[in-house]
């Protein structure tokens, strides 16, 4: 090997990399559109809670069970919206943390997303079981005729399965996706 090259410092070799130019206008356009999208998504996240405002604005008469149900739904919706806004904020401004903290928070984010997907997956099949169970109990309690009751249960089960199966598959795929990402990042960090 050429003597001069052999004596090259790592810094010299590093600086000899070929680099490319970039179009500043393109970047400005891309960044503006990204910023607009982020603001739009945050607005949508917040607006998704607006149906609950109707309950407070109009004096809608509800049973205690329904009030409890809507309160639980509102609280879980609020938590989800805060989580989404936090993720969007991290995506937009998290880059300014030091690299160790950033990598760790990204890893935690992947792990949390995998956990959420896992919960969603189990909620999917569990809701089918609960609904079919509840429908069966109502049929027994109401003491209805056997054949129409079976027919009703069949329809309910079919609808629930049609809705829940893709949901569970999607959630499972998402869980695997984030688990693999987390594992890959973890291996790169350790």
């Amino acid at each position: 090997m050429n003597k001069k090259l052999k004596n090259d410092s790592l810094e010299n070799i590093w600086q000899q990399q070929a680099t490319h130019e970039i179009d500043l206008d393109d970047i400005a356009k891309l960044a503006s559109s990204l910023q607009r999208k982020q603001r739009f998504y945050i607005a949508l996240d917040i607006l998704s809670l607006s149906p609950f405002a109707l309950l407070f604005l109009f004096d809608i008469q509800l049973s205690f069970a329904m009030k409890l149900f809507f309160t639980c739904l509102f609280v879980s919706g609020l938590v989800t919206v805060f989580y989404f806004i936090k993720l969007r904020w991290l995506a937009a401004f998290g880059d300014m943390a030091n690299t160790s903290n950033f990598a760790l928070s990204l890893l935690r984010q992947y792990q949390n997303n995998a956990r959420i997907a896992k919960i969603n997956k189990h909620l999917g099949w569990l809701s089918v079981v609960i609904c079919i169970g509840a429908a069966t109990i109502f049929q027994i309690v109401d003491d209805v005729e056997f054949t129409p009751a079976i027919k009703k249960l069949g329809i309910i089960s079919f609808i629930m399965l049609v809705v829940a199966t893709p949901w569970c598959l999607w959630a499972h795929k998402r869980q695997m996706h984030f688990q693999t990402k987390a594992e890959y990042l973890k291996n790169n960090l350790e």
Partner: protein
Amino acid sequence: MSQSPPLFESVIKQYSPLLFRVASTYEANTSIQQELFQEICVSIWLALKTYKGEASVKTFILKVAHNRCVTHIGKEVGRFKSHEAADAASLADQSLFSEKLSLENEIERSQKVQQLLNAIRRLKLPARQVISLSLEGLRYEDISEICGISVSNVGVTIKRVKEQLRNEIDHE
């Protein structure tokens, strides 16, 4: 269209080679390298809107660039990493552009650059970040601030990794 941050144009003009080198530290495929470079610039555009001058611009943008690249690492999952093909193409590109030096010298130089890049890409993330910042001539204090590790840790990492890189390059 919203207005670009005041520093953006001068920052990119001054530091685009450095930012491109950050992208190449994480990505071997030349076309994806370009995309990553673009993503880094977009992140800097957004981040500069909140820049208040607490750190030097160079330190600030390097932090943003490396963090963007860490996010990019997650995207590598499931993608076929054609390092060898990409390296060969990149080598061919690089060996064609210069007429100033002899062809032999130029090819040797390109090979060395490629060997160094390959060796750096094989490092774990924290070591990769520290060494690439060091090769850009940053002070230990600045590297410590960007990476969130102690100055002494920076020194130890640089010494260990440089030795490892020299060995790898000499043996290849």
